[in-house]
């Protein structure tokens, strides 16, 4: 019995002094390592959890206090969990959401037509949720999140585990939404999700915002390295290539004729490399790697990069978040949070965030004798 009630988790700060405001129509990429506090921020903004300190406002509403009013203006997708009714066909789940959000029949039909067009939803409508593949499920879940045409959309890992074709489809759709003026907050591990959708990026680590500024700037400043992988048809040595490109590093690949040329894109371009190589040898195959945003984040995390808001941010088109109240008149933000959240949450544990002292007591740890006894 003691076992049943034992306190297990300790309090950790999942989000600490996040200070963030998002303008209407803005598309924001919210990235950071696992357990950095991304999901917790979204839960704060959706009203799922209440901040232990600070203030959260979305379109003038305090989410956790007025959850249902907030619900009407937001759409949420947690990529790793479905909101579809498990045993029902997709059509029924959507119809239930239509009723809950009081969507008129004409609006509903228009949305379905639209989802059919961009997500090929029509084919999924008669399928029961548990028989959907991951990609199909994600498409249906996107439809659920956007059915009521929310002003603000939170997407937590909307492309996780999807194959390329579905990912592209989802990204196209995000760009469309963006073009229509929907406010988007997107967390992801995949830089390609952000490309063309978000122009602002916020990097969070250890519950704190460590960078807030333009996506182009962060890439310019911290993700300048490019790698060109080559398969050459003419015998040539790494030294020959290195002599041709003094500003680049050349490493031979495993197979004969394979080379990787790494360079800073401000010093050299991929085009110049290819032209140069073509003069020396026959190029059979080419692949160009851009660093993923998580590489940047990881390097920040490992202390290899020290991000400070530099001139690029100050001059950039996107105001640094600074203080929402001073930078913008109160109430004009789509969403703003100056909040902290401390809890025995799994996020915090996954992050391995140190500094767990205060025991609040949380979930016990019993497992099911459940069905056995029911």
């Amino acid at each position, binding site marked *: *019995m*003691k076992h049943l*009630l034992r306190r297990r988790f300790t309090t950790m700060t999942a989000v600490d002094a996040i200070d963030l405001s998002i303008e209407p129509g803005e598309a924001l990429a919210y990235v950071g390592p696992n357990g950095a506090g991304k999901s917790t921020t979204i839960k704060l903004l959706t009203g799922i959890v209440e901040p232990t300190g600070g203030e959260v406002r979305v379109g003038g509403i305090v989410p956790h206090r007025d959850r249902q009013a907030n619900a009407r203006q937001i759409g949420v997708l947690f990529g790793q969990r479905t909101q579809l009714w498990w045993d029902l066909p997709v059509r029924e789940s959507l119809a239930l959401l239509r009723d809950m959000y009081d969507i008129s029949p004409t609006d509903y039909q228009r949305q379905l037509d639209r989802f059919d067009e961009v997500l090929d939803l029509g084919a999924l409508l008669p399928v029961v949720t548990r028989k959907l593949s991951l990609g199909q499920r994600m498409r249906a879940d996107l439809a659920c999140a956007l059915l009521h045409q929310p002003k603000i959309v939170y997407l937590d890992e909307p492309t996780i585990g999807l194959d390329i074709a579905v990912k592209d489809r989802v990204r196209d759709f995000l760009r469309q939404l963006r073009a229509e003026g929907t406010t988007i907050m997107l967390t992801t591990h995949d830089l390609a999700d952000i490309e063309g959708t978000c122009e602002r990026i916020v990097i969070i680590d250890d519950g704190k915002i460590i960078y807030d500024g333009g996506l182009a700037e962060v890439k310019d400043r911290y993700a300048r390295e490019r790698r060109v992988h080559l398969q050459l048809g003419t015998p040539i040595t790494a030294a020959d290539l290195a002599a041709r490109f003094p500003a680049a590093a050349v490493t031979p690949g495993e197979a004969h004729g394979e080379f990787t040329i790494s360079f800073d894109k401000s010093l050299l371009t991929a085009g110049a490399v290819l032209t140069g190589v073509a003069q020396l040898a026959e190029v059979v195959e080419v692949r160009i790697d851009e660093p993923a945003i998580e590489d940047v984040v990881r390097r920040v995390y490992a202390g290899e990069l020290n991000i400070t808001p530099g001139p690029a941010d100050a001059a950039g088109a996107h105001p640094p978040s600074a203080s929402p109240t001073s930078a913008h008149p109160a109430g004009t933000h789509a969403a703003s949070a100056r909040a902290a959240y401390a809890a025995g949450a799994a996020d915090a544990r996954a992050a391995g965030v140190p500094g767990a002292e205060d025991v609040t007591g949380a979930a016990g740890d019993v497992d099911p004798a459940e069905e*056995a*006894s029911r």
Partner: protein
Amino acid sequence: MKVYLAIARVTARSVLAYRGAYALGIAGSCFQLLATTALWTALLAGGASIGGFDLPEMKAYLLVGFATGLIGTLVGDWVLANRIRDGQVALDLVKPIDTQKVFFAQNCGGLGLEIVFIAVVSGVFVLLAGPMPGPADGWLFAASLAFVLPIRFGITFLTTMLVFWTENHHGVVWARDGVAAVLSGAIVPLAMMPGWLQSAAAVLPFAGLTSTPALIYLGKAPNPGLLIAIQAGWAVALWYLARFAFRGASRQITIHGG
């Protein structure tokens, strides 16, 4: 053999880890024991007897019924049911182990904690519910008790096969447990039932779950050797019936592609 012993050991350990939850579940079952005891106490007050049972005997009958009702139930059949339902069982089939033996080993693994619970509840029951007779013949009773686990396992494993055809395990469990409760004598001693039901119960395996051990405990069985032989016969028969059924059922899933 070694692998099944290991499975039993692992199960015993994991069951132990959730002892708190199980204990709470058992506490719930104790209320059932309490209700039936109260009913019989009201019925048999003042030295009355029904169907040849007086109050102390009836209390002993209920306690044995509680104990046998606990044996082989801690490790639920839903483990197997879920494995069948989500198709995992197809993976088991390609392993060099026998699914039936694995689940029997798991049931054996739960036995230790079951015995602890039975001992605790029995102790408290004897203290609170007052005088009742001890076992008429300890050895015969123990022998009869030993067959409860294999018989219950056979019935459970056999009925769980139905999950190959229906998604709904709960319904199967409820129906099976209901039928077993009546025909095993757990609801009322079989001797009080109408004649036709008694004869049906005599040839079915369920009596071996409750009635046989309880009657042997009370020394009310005219031919305990025969009753134990019937138990043994059912234990073996159910094992092979279940084996046969499982082979047929799993062939079904492999045909359907799992």
